[in-house]
């Protein structure tokens, strides 16, 4: 029998939470090779690695729709290897790297190189996102179909918005037929020009140029109208404002194929947390308390489809500069679940099922895919604790970069084991979690 030569993994006694089927019950999960083969209680398997998951949640493998792995081109900040190791430590089994590498992932050769490198060294699955326009310059369409053949799962010009309504329309019409979602980084360039944080009391106090909240919603409004015009799937990246969220909510009510993601830092921090510490400098910038509350509500009521990290590593020297000169971004894989548990689950805002959905079936649906725990499915699993106390130490991060404001934060619950295709890619040390 073929399965007898394949490695076996028996996860016993965990609380299986599977949004696709609505399952929430204690069950063993038997993995043979790269597939789930059986579920139920009292499963036995000879020569299996047995994992005692008593007290742990067993969820479908987490998907991160939005990250930056910096390879090729900026390997001093991150590589596919180090980035996916950090992702695995955060419980992610799939990561979607943005195309703003050097060179930009705007053609089949770069996509293939990323996928080949990932196959060789990555701890997680890597589903790249291609550029919408050549060089993400906003002029001509990239080789989207050719990139799709090599494995891209969406397109975007992330780091900047798709430049014009005309180009966006073309990209959307093209991607509608390729069945690819178009992801947009929404900001009005003229309002964002020169701004380094959210405009408000804090930016005025600090004397830092700010962008108003409307910067995002203006672009979202344009995008929703073009999505309606073309019938394409639109996904709003790192949504950060109440007004933009309201536009997404209305678009959904009108039946448009519009989705959005929210980052842990936007539902955790606000512009009041910004001083001159460049670790807090992100784009879109940290919003107001009112925005944060709106995002929490959207995460609870289903308007928000996914939690995405926007993991954006920058080597220390690049961030150790004046706030205005520092690049945008913070790393986020390893703290995402801890923050989500703290801010969403332990506060009673969302159920465990909804929390898992935001990391699994939610992002899968954005990409037109499924994610479930059932016999025959790929064995991508995330095991996490709901109550073990731990403290994040960025010095121990698997990432090459250290740019996070969450160093030293203590959490209640977090990733314990990450399984990708039947392979354990991360296992928390007992003493650390």
């Amino acid at each position: 029998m073929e399965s007898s030569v394949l490695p076996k993994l028996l996860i016993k006694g965990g609380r299986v939470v599977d949004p696709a089927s609505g399952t929430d019950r204690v069950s063993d999960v038997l993995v043979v090779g790269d597939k789930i083969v059986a579920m139920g209680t009292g499963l036995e398997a000879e020569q299996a690695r047995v994992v005692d998951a008593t007290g742990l949640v067993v969820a479908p493998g987490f998907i991160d729709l939005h990250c930056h792995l910096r390879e090729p081109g900026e390997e001093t900040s991150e590589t596919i290897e180090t980035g996916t190791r950090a992702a695995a430590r955060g419980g992610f089994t799939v990561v979607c790297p943005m195309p703003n590498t050097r060179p930009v992932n705007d053609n089949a050769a770069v996509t293939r190189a990323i996928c080949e490198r990932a196959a060789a060294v990555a701890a997680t699955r890597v589903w790249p996102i291609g550029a919408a326009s050549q060089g993400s310059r906003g002029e001509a369409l990239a080789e989207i179909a050719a990139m799709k053949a090599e494995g891209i799962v969406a397109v975007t010009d992330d780091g900047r918005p798709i430049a014009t309504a005309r180009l966006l329309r073309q990209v959307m019409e093209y991607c509608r037929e390729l069945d690819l979602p178009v992801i947009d980084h929404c900001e009005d360039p003229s309002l964002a020009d020169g701004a380094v944080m959210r405009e408000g009391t804090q930016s005025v106090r600090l004397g830092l140029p700010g962008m108003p909240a409307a910067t995002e919603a203006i672009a979202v409004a344009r995008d929703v109208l073009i999505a309606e015009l073309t019938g394409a799937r639109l996904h709003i990246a790192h949504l950060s404002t109440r007004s933009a969220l309201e536009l997404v909510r209305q678009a959904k009510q009108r039946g448009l194929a519009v989705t959005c993601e929210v980052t842990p830092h936007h539902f955790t921090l606000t512009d009041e947390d910004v001083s001159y510490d460049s670790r807090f400098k992100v784009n879109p910038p940290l919003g107001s308390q009112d925005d944060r509350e709106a995002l929490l509500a959207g995460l609870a009521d289903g308007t928000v489809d996914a939690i995405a990290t926007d993991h954006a590593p920058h080597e220390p020297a690049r961030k150790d500069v004046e706030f205005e000169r520092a690049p945008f971004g913070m790393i986020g894989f390893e703290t995402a679940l801890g923050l989500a548990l703290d801010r969403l689950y332990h506060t009673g805002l969302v159920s465990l099922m909804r929390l898992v959905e935001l990391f699994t079936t939610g992002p899968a649906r954005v990409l037109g895919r499924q994610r479930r725990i059932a016999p025959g499915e790929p064995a991508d699993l995330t095991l996490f604790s709901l109550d073990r106390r731990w403290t994040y130490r960025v010095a121990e991060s698997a990432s090459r970069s250290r740019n996070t404001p969450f160093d030293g934060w203590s959490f209640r619950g977090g990733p314990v084991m990450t399984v990708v295709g039947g392979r354990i890619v991360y296992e928390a040390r007992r003493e650390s979690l």
Partner: protein
Amino acid sequence: MRLRHLLAIEPLTAEEIAFLLDQARPFQQFQQYPLKKLATLRGKSVVLAFFEPSTRTRLSFAAAASRLGADTYVFQAEASSLKKGESLADTVRTLEAMKPDCIVLRHSASGAAAFVAERVGVPVINAGDGQHEHPTQALLDALTIRDRLGRLEGLAVTIVGDILHSRVARSNLHLLSKFGCRLTLCGPPMWVPEEFERIVPGVRRVFVLEEALDGADVVMVLRVQQERLHEPMLPREEYIAQYQLTPERLRRARPGAPVLHPGPMIRGLEIDPAVADGPQAAVLEQVTNGVAVRMALLYLLLGGAGGIERSAEIAH
């Protein structure tokens, strides 16, 4: 605990500010002496690290240090390694390695003074950081107002111009509000955002200059920064017509209300020459007081004889 740096007015208390102003008083008298040289800080050295062009502030600090007997070394960004790509962090560590006793910093980035203070082991004086604060300017302005009117408490002060981008305005707002001043901000609306009303108590915004000046005890005119990058400038004639401080408009203020300007002044733009040269203008007193305030500050921070015990009164 003693005052270690002077990075901003905002975190100081009214008592600490009053103490600094009182410390400046003997140095004000000293400016009148024919021989202006003390040995208090002999052997001490002060680096004037100016990452942004400035003549008057730099000269004022140089005069203050020199009159206390300290040596000064000037670091000018233009002639520096910055153009070779060296970071601010590395540059100031290099300056610190030359073992100065104090770094006076002027930089175009908001927060630069705090950034440097976190990275060096010597006192840092903020001589203007971007659009954030210019604390010694606010101190010298307060000294000038107190000399003219005998007090700071409860005054009605009107500040005119580009408030949003002005570090002078921010430092003055923080300082004056701590003394219970009623502050009126006036300027083109896009430069006077409502956020200021939430940052400091006692602020109101008035967009008609005549109304803003009504009953003012003090008028502060800001420089119009014509080099603004991300902000289109109002047409010059429009600004003059709406916001120039003219003798007619000044008559709306209390008789004899002092008129302050941080300089450099552009006559005929933000201020009518007749006001600039008139008896209410306090611009030259401001300059003289600037040296006195900076002497007091250097004396405190560099621990001149007796300075450490006196400054122990500053709980910061």
